[in-house]
């Protein structure tokens, strides 16, 4: 799946970059939802929920394509069929001084493909990742609203 957005204007027009991806994200996610709905009439709600979550991250990664390190890492993780896990716990044990120095490390754990990035690439990838994440969340909320209405 190729993204329709231009690659040359990546830095200058992040919003335009996102627009084509939004449509792709929506269609991918909705199709996945439909498949899940068709094939899981008897399975548990938790299993379905896991599949939906997986579909959400998959839509993000597919719509971002392979031009981003985070989406490549995410696609790798999805294809290996590994359990999709993201670190969510806050570590409160660290002293303030240590936390300052480790924040970049913490961020690396949160962004897919983080550990192999230097600081600048990390910032860039983080920004892109956040953009796609927020779009995905908004998409899911829209779907929720349209189902419930």
């Amino acid at each position, binding site marked *: 799946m190729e993204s329709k957005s231009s690659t040359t204007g990546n*830095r200058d027009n*992040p919003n335009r970059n996102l627009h084509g991806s*939004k*449509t792709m994200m*929506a*269609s991918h996610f*909705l*199709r996945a*939802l*439909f498949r*899940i*709905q*068709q094939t*899981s009439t008897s399975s548990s*709600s*938790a299993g*379905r*929920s*896991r599949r*939906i*979550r997986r579909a*959400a*991250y998959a839509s993000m990664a597919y719509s971002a394509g392979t031009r981003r390190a985070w989406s490549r890492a995410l696609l790798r993780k999805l294809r290996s069929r590994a359990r999709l896990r*993201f670190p*969510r716990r*806050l570590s409160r044990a660290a002293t303030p001084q240590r*936390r*300052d*120095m480790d*924040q*970049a490390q*913490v*961020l690396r754990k*949160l*962004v897919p493909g983080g550990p192999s990035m*230097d*600081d*600048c690439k990390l*910032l*860039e990838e*983080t*920004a892109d*990742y*956040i*953009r796609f*994440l*927020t779009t*995905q*969340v908004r*998409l*899911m*909320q*829209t*779907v*929720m609203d*349209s*189902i*419930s209405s």
Partner: protein
Amino acid sequence: MSYPHAFTPCRRRLSFEEISTQGPLSISYIALPPSLPHHFEAGRKMSSRRSRISEEEINELVSKLQSLLPEARRRGSGRASASKLLKETCNYIRKLNREVDDLSNRLSALMATMDSDSAEADIIRSLLRS
């Protein structure tokens, strides 16, 4: 010039001290760990390195990142440390991951009550909307 240790540009760690949030974002200075041979002073580019990371690039990245975060505070003093920014970023990403989880659960619950016809209608509606 030979460097005391193997300097791989891809693995370099930056630790920036202060980020001013007044007007256009600019990093007042960047302090590199003392083990690096160059002493990076504000406004100067690293020389003789294949991958140059200039101050302007870092400014751009940081400001881009900051603009994405929910703007919870605009401090009167106008200075935010880089570590604060990173911490906020981490919290924001965690929050978004939690929202994805939560929405997945709710969608799953909703889908249990749906039949296939309303699923198709929902898909068509959502596609038209987005």
